[in-house]
């Protein structure tokens, strides 16, 4: 285990230029002790150093390692998951690769120690934008999920959905109510249930038949193998212990068909129906 010298302080922003010799440990400045992984806990060099590092990277490294550091056209590997980069603190490990080259990567005699620390600082500044351990710096692609055929979706809707829904009735304006395309698609595929265990679904009616033949009905609150509770039509609360089939219970799940649909729907049908739902403004 290498021993490292820590300097602690949220506001203290000391940056010690590192030597590129591996045996000299850079001083580690902890800027955020609450961050989850070390690279995120550490302070970054000042903004102007990072900016200079970025400029040097663009000229010297980008063509091989890519503008986003994830690998480039001329065959350099992804630097964001590189062991050499992750093990580096202030250029002391990256610097060795830069000055000596490795494999198909040439050496860079033109970059002096300050340049190396700046390039390393730039690379670390990109890594630090990862939200948490194991995640990647954010990407932002403009993606369109509305790739389906709305006419085919409408035909499917008329066959499979119109027994319960109507475009001019309950689903009128659905795409104005649910603006986000992802949420719109999730909402209809899940029958409105956005996640498992979601209790926001439609009321399930339950009828409980007691041993003496008496019946209690209402909307289901919760049940498992040993218990059932319900709200009666007059607003009262009732609960029952369950033991096998006693008392007998009948539950009407309005989302029963939606659950079956999950096993039947193809991606194409999903995209077509979503394209159709999008037209219901």
């Amino acid at each position: 285990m290498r021993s490292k010298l820590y300097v602690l302080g949220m506001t203290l922003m000391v940056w010690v230029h590192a030597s590129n010799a591996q045996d000299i440990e850079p001083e580690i400045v902890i800027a955020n002790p609450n961050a989850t992984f070390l690279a995120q806990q550490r302070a970054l060099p000042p903004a102007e150093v990072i900016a200079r590092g970025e400029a040097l990277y663009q000229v010297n490294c980008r063509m091989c390692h890519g503008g986003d550091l994830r690998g480039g056209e001329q065959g350099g590997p992804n630097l964001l998951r590189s062991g050499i980069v992750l093990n580096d603190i202030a250029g002391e490990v990256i610097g060795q690769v830069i000055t000596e080259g490795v494999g198909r990567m040439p050496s860079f005699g033109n970059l002096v120690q300050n340049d190396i620390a700046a390039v390393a600082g730039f690379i670390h500044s990109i890594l630090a934008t990862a939200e948490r351990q194991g995640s990647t710096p954010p990407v932002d692609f403009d993606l369109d999920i509305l790739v389906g055929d709305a006419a085919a979706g409408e035909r499917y809707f008329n066959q499979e959905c119109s027994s319960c829904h109507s475009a001019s009735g309950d689903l009128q304006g659905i795409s104005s109510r649910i603006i986000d395309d992802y949420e719109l698609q999730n909402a209809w595929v899940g029958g409105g249930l956005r996640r498992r265990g979601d209790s926001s679904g439609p009321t399930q009616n339950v009828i409980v038949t007691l041993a003496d033949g008496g019946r209690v009905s209402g909307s289901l609150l919760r049940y498992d193998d040993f218990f059932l509770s319900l709200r009666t039509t007059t607003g009262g609360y009732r609960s029952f212990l369950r033991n096998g089939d006693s008392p007998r219970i009948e539950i009407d799940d309005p989302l029963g068909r939606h659950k079956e649909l999950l096993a039947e729907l193809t991606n194409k049908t999903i995209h077509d129906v979503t394209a159709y739902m999008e037209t219901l403004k």
Partner: protein
Amino acid sequence: MKNLILLILLGCTLPIQLLAQNGVVVSPDELLNDLDGDWRSYSGDYSGKRYSSLTQIDKDTVKNLTLAWTTEMNFTTRSGFDPFTGSSNIVTKIGGEGRGDIDITSGSLKGSILEVNGILYVTSPDHAWAMDARDGSEIWHYHWETLGGTHIGSRGSAIWNDSLLFETPDNFLVSVNIHTGEENWHAEIASFELQYFSTMAPIVVGNRVIVGTGNDLDQPGFTQAFDASTGELLWRFYSVPMNEGDPGLDTWPSLDAASHGGGNAWVPGVYDPETDLYIFGTGNPTPAYTGVSRPGDNLFTCSLVAVNVTTGEMEWYFQTSPHDTHDWDSAQTPILIDGIIDGQPRKLVSTASRNGYFFTVDRVTGEHIATNLYSTTANWSSRIRENGSPEPNPIKDATIAGSLVSPVEGGVANWQPPAFNPDTGLFYTQENNGYNMLYLTDPDPRGSMGLGGKQRDEIGDVDSAFQAIDYKTGKAVWRHEWPGGDGVAAGVLTTASGLVFTGDGRNNMVAFDAENGDLLWHTRIGNMTNPPQTFMVDDRQYLLVAVRDRLFSFVMY
């Protein structure tokens, strides 16, 4: 005044503590015993069966189980008796390479607890405790000052003679004196800079400790053996090819992809003393959801792997998920089964995989015996290959416009261990069903990294179940559907008295009749966060389980 009381107190307890400071608690030989009155290792014994020979709690008496004690774990660092607060005489033993300024308390107990001679050994990330199994009182507390990182859980500890061994989230293997909690040594097992994190319960075999680690940033997975007395590294087995010429490299597009290909082994495996094989499941390939950057089967990720414990060499493998693209690792603890196939006695190993398939293979050769889908919803495979591996269906990969995929990320099964009862010949596992809409958010042909590049939304609510599976075919002999939708994740315990204990995902711990799935008992203590366990103290059989940071211990009087 305060010090005086402390001194008197120390004076009273010191001789007893000194007496108790030596002595073997579990020798490596005793680890070869089947699971009986003590729970000596992660699965209770090497086989992974979680089949206890205890019979005091049986089909008739189980209804008499009652709470012996319950206690919340104490994570606070303590410095001894305080007459003003009346706190106990516990002095927390401190270790760790951190600066002591990071406090990541991840409260839930998510691993096996060990029990030997009436003493419990409990772990959670950065903490270990010894506790009295009779009443839950604390005997010692150890706290590791962390460097930080993912604190997702601790799966438990291991005993080697008189030391207790466990992993820390920032990748150290720690050995403490089992009588006092005083640290013997600690050894770095993986690089925290490379964003590894460690959760596995170590497995002791002879004088070796086998450890695994986790990683979510495309670093290669490996399993290692350390010397149990010194912490010296003996061998390291990588789950993926790391050098030109390594086996499996032809199932990756490049060495760069392979050596960043994951396969982290983060759940304890099982050990077969006859063949000296440690058999375990490897993690998923990385980047997890963007398989575009790693065409091929991606060996030896998502595989059952058998490694010789003396040499660290792989003897055989069986891939349970070729080219996984859904984070469904195959790390689940497998189970060694001495069974009968076509009238012939066979040495087998079975696993209920996170991907929804059940597998049985020959544990000496790796020869495939059975594959069967044990989920009513899993929809990602198009067919079973001739060799028994399910073929992934590429239309179930994340797509920009969305793919409807089952199971959910957590899988049909996860680290929560299954059980096998040799009397019924049945393998008991949860069947956790569910659907995702899976969207590709990073369509870059180079692929993303780690778990990135996707948006994953769980939708709908389908039924989950508990299954008793015939190991010969993988088919359910009985299946109990959990009422009321929602998922379930709970480990399993079975006993020689024909019981199966597990959780129902609806806040109950339940007991089934192992033969037919009749429900015999339940108690509503909250959803269990670790697998149920049983042991004998003072001729009384205890049933122990954790719900978050609280232990519940049941007995019959």
